């Protein structure tokens, strides 16, 4: 049900620009207004969310420690999993953000029942997550060839590496395959593993399907139904230069692609996709475990009622004296 709904939403989202372009001739709306609006929503929304998070203070330093603390000089500290200073924290965050260190912890393999190797399912989760996120990033960077004239050297280099298999014309990019495969895996996993299906919401299926739609339209455009790339670049450069103009004959497939991307951008700040920004603000990961070395300040620390020693002694003075415990007041 949830799944079906997500699917229908993505289909509708794909149909909207198709109908708009084909039958209403709304290429300006879909080529200019929608992308501008989406980017505006994305930037404003993203900043809003980050500011909103940042506005809540971090009252306590609560890192989750995953290795030996810094204590006596002869005990070897695990600086990455239990950092005590900034460099360690940066290292820990880098491992976390770039390589999904915590997710990787799941990939324990054990010998069981003789020679049979059992892999935790989460090992595949880590692999798919890495494949997905990195492919997405590389594909995004590759798209910068549409944003710049001349195309920077680094982007050309990246394209060459990505297409090193040299298969087909146009050259097959590995990341295209990886992205679609990884999204598909993450999607199937959501349906196939009962625990995960049980917790999944429409807002979990939807982004996966949306990104799959983006990837699929992109692949179709590149390998099967070629669109007018010169026109696309013209449009994009126009958008960048704030002198938007829509060249004719770009092809409705491109507009579907663009519209889905716009949807992703606009949807991003209001969804769980914000984990991209949130991971940097997670207090269990981005703080050093130097609690007993450096005092952490809680901005809203307020005085509380305590049971003072004087009150305590008043209640128990006689009993304390009877067994020779020293008291303040006789």
């Amino acid at each position, binding site marked *: 049900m949830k799944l079906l709904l997500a699917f229908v939403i993505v289909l509708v989202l794909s149909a909207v620009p198709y109908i708009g372009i084909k039958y209403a001739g709304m290429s300006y709306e879909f080529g200019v207004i929608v992308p501008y609006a989406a980017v505006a929503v994305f930037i404003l929304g993203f900043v809003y969310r980050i500011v909103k998070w940042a506005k809540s203070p971090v009252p306590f330093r609560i890192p989750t420690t995953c290795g030996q603390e810094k204590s006596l000089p002869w005990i070897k500290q695990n600086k990455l999993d239990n950092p005590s200073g900034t460099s360690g924290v940066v290292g820990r965050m880098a491992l976390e953000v770039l390589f999904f260190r915590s997710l990787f912890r799941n990939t324990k393999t*054990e010998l*069981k*029942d003789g020679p049979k190797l059992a892999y935790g*399912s989460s090992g595949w989760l880590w692999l798919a997550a890495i494949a997905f996120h990195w492919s997405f990033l590389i594909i995004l960077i590759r798209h910068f060839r549409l944003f710049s004239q001349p195309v920077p050297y680094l982007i050309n280099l990246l394209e060459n590496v990505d297409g090193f298999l040299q298969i087909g014309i146009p050259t097959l990019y590995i990341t295209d395959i990886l992205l679609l495969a990884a999204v598909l895996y993450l999607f199937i996993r959501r349906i196939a*593993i*009962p*625990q995960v299906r*049980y917790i999944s919401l429409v807002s979990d299926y939807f982004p996966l399907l949306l990104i799959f739609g983006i990837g699929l339209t992109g692949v179709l455009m590149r390998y099967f139904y070629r669109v007018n790339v010169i026109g696309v670049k013209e449009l994009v450069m126009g958008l960048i230069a704030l002198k938007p103009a829509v060249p004719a004959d770009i092809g409705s497939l491109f507009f579907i692609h663009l519209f889905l991307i716009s949807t992703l951008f606009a949807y991003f700040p209001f969804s769980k996709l914000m984990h991209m920004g949130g991971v940097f603000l997670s207090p269990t990961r981005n703080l050093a475990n130097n609690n007993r070395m450096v005092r952490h300040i809680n901005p809203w620390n307020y005085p509380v009622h305590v049971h003072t020693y004087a009150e305590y002694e008043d209640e128990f003075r006689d009993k304390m004296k009877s067994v020779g415990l020293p008291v303040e007041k006789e």
Partner: protein
Amino acid sequence: MGLIDILSGKKEIIEKKWFDMIAASYPVNASSFLKNQKEQFANPVGNTIGEAVHTVIDVLIHEGTNEKANTCLDKLVKVRAVQDFAPSMAVDFLYMLKQLLKDELKNEFHTGGVYEEFLLIESRIDTMALFSFESYLKYKEKIYELKVNEFKNMAFRLLERANLTFEFKDEGPAFEKSVLERDTVK
């Protein structure tokens, strides 16, 4: 072909089906975890079920002694005694096996010849079921015993102190009686 040979041939499928039936007695999303996580420390419950399933069927087919099966059954019942099961459900997995065997052997029953042998196996399963019931009760009693012990440990020194004062003050018949009672508690 005798029943043992038939069962030997179907061993793997019976083990799998029986395991699935037991796993199905857990919440839907837990049963797949029990089945799929093979690592013994990450999934102790699934592992205990697997071991019991394997051993019981092995014992039935290879005419092993029940004792071998009992160890594993005891372990499994120990787990189920602290899970969310009504007593009947906690030990019903052997009845599941009986039903499973009946289903699996339906054709053979019709062609005849194995029914007598099956009755023998069935009665062995019944014996195991009775054993499991005893285990279940043993562990339920254990739970209550633990509750009492825990209370004693928790205030060990306080109780000791209370007992001491009692011991020295109440001499005479009442004291002796209390000492006797204390010993029986121990």
